[in-house]
């Protein structure tokens, strides 16, 4: 046992500089959003915007499309994450790099790529047309664009979370006679839960803010493909700065609402965004 007092960290110039830099960056990240929402609330444009058809239909479209994208992300992303986490095969690192690629692609590049694949004159355009399916300029296109750019966040996080589950637990369950599905539901998912939830939140947030790929691939039409980020941009381009600020504030508040709600209803454990791989 130490007889004297252990010198505590937190005193001296080093500590103050660290805190100073942290504070400055915190301001940089937080102030723009605070100013945005503050301005929209103070000059009443937020209240007015919530009454306009354009904003309300864009908000509804944003919320429904991101919800569907999330379902698709989990339905297809979880199997992919499982395969990547559990099976090592030749070229698996290449597959991982390709799956991560949409994260670093500029959104408009993503939109262009989707157009070249699924557009009318795209690679799959002919076959899709024969089946009577036309994707560009539809709400489906919005969902696909969102899923393309946002799913990699979930897959990455899920992959890391699943890989981190101790195989011993799974082996023990197998010995006790659990089927693979039971094992997945009762062991893997709960133990990887933090990473899975963090990935879901990141993925949803990215989908909500998606703009470049949407306007490239899905187009811009009120009620069908005009999500809230497109309204923000469109109003600004059209000179309605107040409308743009109000739509942006609504986007911020919607995102904040979900982030807070997820923290509050945290499925029995604390959501830790730092667990994102």
């Amino acid at each position: 046992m130490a007889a004297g007092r252990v010198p505590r960290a937190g005193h001296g110039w080093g500590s103050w500089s660290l805190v100073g830099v942290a504070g400055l960056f915190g301001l940089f990240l937080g102030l723009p959003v605070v100013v945005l929402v503050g301005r929209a609330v103070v000059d009443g444009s937020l209240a007015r915007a919530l009454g306009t058809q354009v904003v309300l239909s864009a908000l509804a479209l944003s919320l429904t499309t991101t919800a569907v994208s999330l379902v698709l992300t989990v339905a297809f992303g979880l199997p992919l994450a499982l395969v990547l986490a559990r099976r090592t095969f030749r070229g698996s690192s290449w597959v991982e790099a390709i799956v991560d690629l949409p994260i670093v692609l500029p959104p408009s590049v993503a939109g262009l790529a989707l157009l070249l694949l699924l557009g009318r004159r795209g690679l799959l355009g002919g076959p899709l047309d024969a089946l009577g399916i036309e994707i560009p300029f539809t709400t489906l296109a919005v969902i696909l664009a969102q899923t393309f750019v946002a799913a990699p966040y979930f897959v990455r996080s899920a992959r890391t979370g699943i890989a981190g589950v101790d195989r011993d637990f799974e082996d023990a369950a197998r010995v006790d006679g659990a089927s693979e599905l039971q094992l997945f539901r009762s062991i893997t998912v709960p133990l990887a839960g933090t990473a899975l939830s963090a990935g879901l939140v990141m993925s949803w947030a990215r989908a909500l803010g998606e703009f470049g790929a949407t306007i490239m691939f899905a187009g811009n039409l009120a009620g069908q493909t005009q999500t809230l980020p497109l309204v923000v941009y469109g109003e600004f381009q059209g000179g309605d700065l107040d409308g743009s600020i109000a739509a942006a504030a609504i986007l911020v508040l919607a995102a904040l609402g979900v982030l807070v709600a997820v923290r509050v209803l945290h499925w029995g454990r604390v959501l830790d965004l730092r667990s994102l791989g």
Partner: protein
Amino acid sequence: MRSRLVTSIAALAVVLAACSSGATPAPSAPAPSAAASVAASPAAASVNLTIYAAASLKAALAKATTAYEAANPGTTLAISTDSSAALETKIEQGAPADVLLSADTANPQKLVDKGLAAGSITKFAGNLLTVIVPMANPAGIQTPADLAKPGIKVIAAGDTVPITKYATQLVANLAKQPGYPADFAARYTANVVSKEENVAAVVAKIELGEGDAGIVYVTDAKTSTKVATVAVPDAANVPATYGGVVVKASPNLAAAQAFLAWLAGPDGQAILASFGFLPPS
């Protein structure tokens, strides 16, 4: 640790607030001396002009830039194109443009009305509209009346983009022509599947074959090699007037005025004409 963080954030906020209120008088002090040194040796001074121009002017201005820079050594032009309405909004928000070249006169007029323009509007070009279709013309558009056929995917531009105002007028004019259905305008509107940010994006989508048709400027159709045109009857066509204005906050007022005058003068007009632009009406 946490209370220190709060204290330092508060202190930083106070310092930043003080800095921002004190910052405004500072830049104006060195500016007069810089202007004086420019005026003293005009031949040696290098001027960089930032031109905000309508998307339909892109190709013509590229050629104009080469010509102007050759005729005026020391001056360089930086061209930025987008929808005229978007550019006007950016200038209102303080974007550092010297000249606004708009596809209409309404947007420069907004700058004049807000006291952000130096001098009056100079009309420097005219344009007409046409219908473009992908080279293969998959929807078989033969006349502008086909724009109302059910199932046609029309690509339009956003509501505030100048081409949309002209196109709406064109559609209204066409509806009064013999051979056009009475509800032509409504059917055209129902066929619009996307409202792009500017006219260049409309051209791009048609070039890609994603849309069946779009109403754009004659000059856009001329510049693009991947679209075919469907002629619009002259009686219904809408003449577009392009207006330019110098931005009051420009640090290069004389150079900006000179460029705008050059564009409206014989040299500039010759270059614009080679791209299909008309003299201003």
